[in-house]
């Protein structure tokens, strides 16, 4: 019954999306007030129904209802409850349902709260949102039905990939999805504004909180995903320039550029076409990423829907949505005046440089990710990895960071470099200090640049607060400062990790010692342990930093039996100045064990930096929402007073 209820809700939600599309389109075109009143309620009810369908799927997984195909394929009655629930989105069908759930929830939310835009633009926006959702409903219902029953219930489920059975990973996908799909709101706003030619500062202000929200989730999702890859893969790497990672980085880059160009549009009524284009591109990158991952044409990602039929379906959706939006952009953008030219030395001047460079970085990542696909069509296989992305990316990142040092200090419209000279000198001194330090410590070229610019940016990012009383600084400005500081912190972590990491591979007996950097690690014991659905060999390691009191670490080599797989569970000892990363490998011979140890100075800054960036986004979002609520309050009061006077 539960599965059927879920399926029925899904069909009804799809029908409402169709209604939302038709009513919104007619209302926006003919200014028909009667049909217009249908649009917002349709969006809200659609959101509720879709959330209901998703809840039904989670319930099925919680009960391990083995008569449902998806549950039987991806769950197992032995699994801990939290991983049963996570199993609901740890597969193709469930994750697509999560995707439309987020999309329709976002649509419902804008329908409920957004009051700033002209009605016609709003209706066009909701029509666009309904249109996009409709395609994904069709995809779910016709080729990826999550509620399909088995003719005969299975006796036991197939289990979930053990690598997914990790608490971090259980909540990583929903976070990233909120980001990916949240960008659909920006997409719909952009299309709505294009259709009604209402690209105004108000449009930018209305769109900005949604982009901020999606961007915060993307930032958290990428940060968490990177940390998960770091501790779960067992080799200490935290970013591989893998196509799947790039698929999450590209929407983030586009959304970051969009945030900044929306600021220019909101403040100076310029960069209209550019902002619209970024709005379309950001969500397009989410969809292209999804396509690349699920069609299986780029990597051999076999776990999800490597199925040409589904790949074709998604590609057709891409062609309709992205192609359609970009075609409308091509036709309409010419009539959306771009706005006046800028002074090079001004806030908007710096933001334009930032935007163009961010977009170029996006272009490099896109090229490097898709290029193997192009050569494969010609019958040649190539690999594009860190040796390409790192230096080529740096060509664009370095000037962008240099502009970032001074940009936030500049005034809108027009400024003189002489006015910010003192701050600029402070920033450059920090850059120089970082440079000398890195050279003295013998870091390579890119890490040296990273340390120098990270140090400079760390100092320069807080300079906008100089001479201001912190209480009086607007939340949005505090958010900007925090986010920029976060970038600096993450950059320092990345540079330090790549320049100063030490590795130690050793084969030692129980009782013997190995050292890495300032750490002395003793293998005290190797014991068998058992979990709910795995057994493992667990090492007991006593790690002492610089002769201090030892910390106990428990790295494991796990064997799961359903499905049968081996994973390594690394053990981490975190200090303020870095992390010890320990892995227990196989038995080397009769008595000795392979152990892998890394000392990674300041590696944690990478993820603290990422979290700071997200926190900055959150502060900015709160600031924007508060300003908006205030403005609403003031206009309402003014209207009431006018009424009273009349």
């Amino acid at each position: 019954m539960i599965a059927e209820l879920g399926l029925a809700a899904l069909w009804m939600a799809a029908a409402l999306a169709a209604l939302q599309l038709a009513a919104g389109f007619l209302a926006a075109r003919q200014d028909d007030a009667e049909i217009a009143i249908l649009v917002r309620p349709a969006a809200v009810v659609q959101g509720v129904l879709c959330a209901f369908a998703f809840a039904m799927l989670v319930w099925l997984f919680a009960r391990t209802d083995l008569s449902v195909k998806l549950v039987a394929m991806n769950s197992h009655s032995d699994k801990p409850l939290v991983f049963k629930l996570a199993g609901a989105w740890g597969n193709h069908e469930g994750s697509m349902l999560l995707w439309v759930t987020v999309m329709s929830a976002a649509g419902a939310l804008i329908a409920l709260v957004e009051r700033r835009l002209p009605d016609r633009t709003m209706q066009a926006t909701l029509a666009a949102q309904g249109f996009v959702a409709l395609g994904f409903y069709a995809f779910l219902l016709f080729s990826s039905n999550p509620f399909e029953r088995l003719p005969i219930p299975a006796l036991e489920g197939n289990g979930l990939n053990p690598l997914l059975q990790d608490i971090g990973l259980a909540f990583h996908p929903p976070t990233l999805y909120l980001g990916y799909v949240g960008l659909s709101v920006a997409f719909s706003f952009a299309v709505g504004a294009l259709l009604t030619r209402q690209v105004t500062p108000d449009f930018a202000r209305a769109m900005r909180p949604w982009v901020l929200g999606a961007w915060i989730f993307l930032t958290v999702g990428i940060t968490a995903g990177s940390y998960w890859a770091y501790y779960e893969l067992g080799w200490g790497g935290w970013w591989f320039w893998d196509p799947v990672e790039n698929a999450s980085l590209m929407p983030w880059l586009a959304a970051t550029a969009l945030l900044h160009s929306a600021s220019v549009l909101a403040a100076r009524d310029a960069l209209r076409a550019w902002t619209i284009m970024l709005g379309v591109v950001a969500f397009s990158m989410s969809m292209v990423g999804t396509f690349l991952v699920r069609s299986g044409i780029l990597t051999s990602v076999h776990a999800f829907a490597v199925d040409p039929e589904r790949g074709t379906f998604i590609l057709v959706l891409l062609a309709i949505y992205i192609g359609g939006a970009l075609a409308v952009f091509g036709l309409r953008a010419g009539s959306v005046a771009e706005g006046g030219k800028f002074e090079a030395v001004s806030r908007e001047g710096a933001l334009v440089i930032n935007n163009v460079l961010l977009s170029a970085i996006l272009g490099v990542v896109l090229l490097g990710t898709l290029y193997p696909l192009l050569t494969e069509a010609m019958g040649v296989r190539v690999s594009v990895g860190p040796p390409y992305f790192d230096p080529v990316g740096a060509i664009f990142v370095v000037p962008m960071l240099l502009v970032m040092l001074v940009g936030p200090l500049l005034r809108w419209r027009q400024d003189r470099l002489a006015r910010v000279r003192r701050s600029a000198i402070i920033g450059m001194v920090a850059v120089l200090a970082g440079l000398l330090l890195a050279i003295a410590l013998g870091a390579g070229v890119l890490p040296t640049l990273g340390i120098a610019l990270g140090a400079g940016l760390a100092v320069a990012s807080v300079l906008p607060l100089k001479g201001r009383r912190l209480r009086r600084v607007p939340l949005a400005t505090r958010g900007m400062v925090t986010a920029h500081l976060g970038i600096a912190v993450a950059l320092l972590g990345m540079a330090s990790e790549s320049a100063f990491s030490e590795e130690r591979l050793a084969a030692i007996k129980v009782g013997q010692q190995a050292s890495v950097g300032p750490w002395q690690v003793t293998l005290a014991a190797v014991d068998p342990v058992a979990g709910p659905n795995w057994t493992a060999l667990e090492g007991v390691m006593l790690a002492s930093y610089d002769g201090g009191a030892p910390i106990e670490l428990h790295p494991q080599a796990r064997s799961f039996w359903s499905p049968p797989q081996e994973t390594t569970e690394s053990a981490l000892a975190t200090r303020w100045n870095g992390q010890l990363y320990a892995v227990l490998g196989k038995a080397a011979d009769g008595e000795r064990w392979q152990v892998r140890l890394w000392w990674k100075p300041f590696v944690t800054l990478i993820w603290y930096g990422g979290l700071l960036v997200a926190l900055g986004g959150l502060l900015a979002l709160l600031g924007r929402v508060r300003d908006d609520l205030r403005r609403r309050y003031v206009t309402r009061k003014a209207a009431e007073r006018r009424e009273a006077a009349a």
Partner: protein
Amino acid sequence: MRGWRFFLPLGIFALFLGIAGYQLTQPKDDFVHSTMIGRPMPEFAMRPASPDRPGLSLADLKDGTPKLLNIWASWCIPCAAEAPQLAALKAQGAPIVGVAIRDRPEDVAAFLARYGNPFDRIGADDLSELQLAIGSSGVPETFVIDGDGIIRYQHIGDIRASDVPMLMEKLREAGR
């Protein structure tokens, strides 16, 4: 205001669509092919992998008769699956030499006792050295080597029944 540049993003996207669409229609080739075809085998000499067959060296391949060089291992499941096809090739007169990757003599012996032994010689490649030197990326793989020790053809994955005539044909071509 020239309008064409606003269509630039659409153009780039159309390019992507074209490539992605084309790739979807193509069968996915996940194999890493050797780029050593047409080039000579490297110098090597391997100890016997099993007590009842001699080991393998370059000189054995340069004796004038083309051979099939089968890269396999006792721990590899598809290798067991292709055993009947190797036997069929042997029965049709194909000389087959084997290279056992990362294998212990007792495991090799047990495997051969169970699935048959079509090999004239079996070399043991304990560190995958020969495998790397000829651009092979997994087990099982079957190379056609001509009488002068030149690599002529690489078959990746297990040999299916339908591959047998094709491999015989490649072997004949190598003999010409």
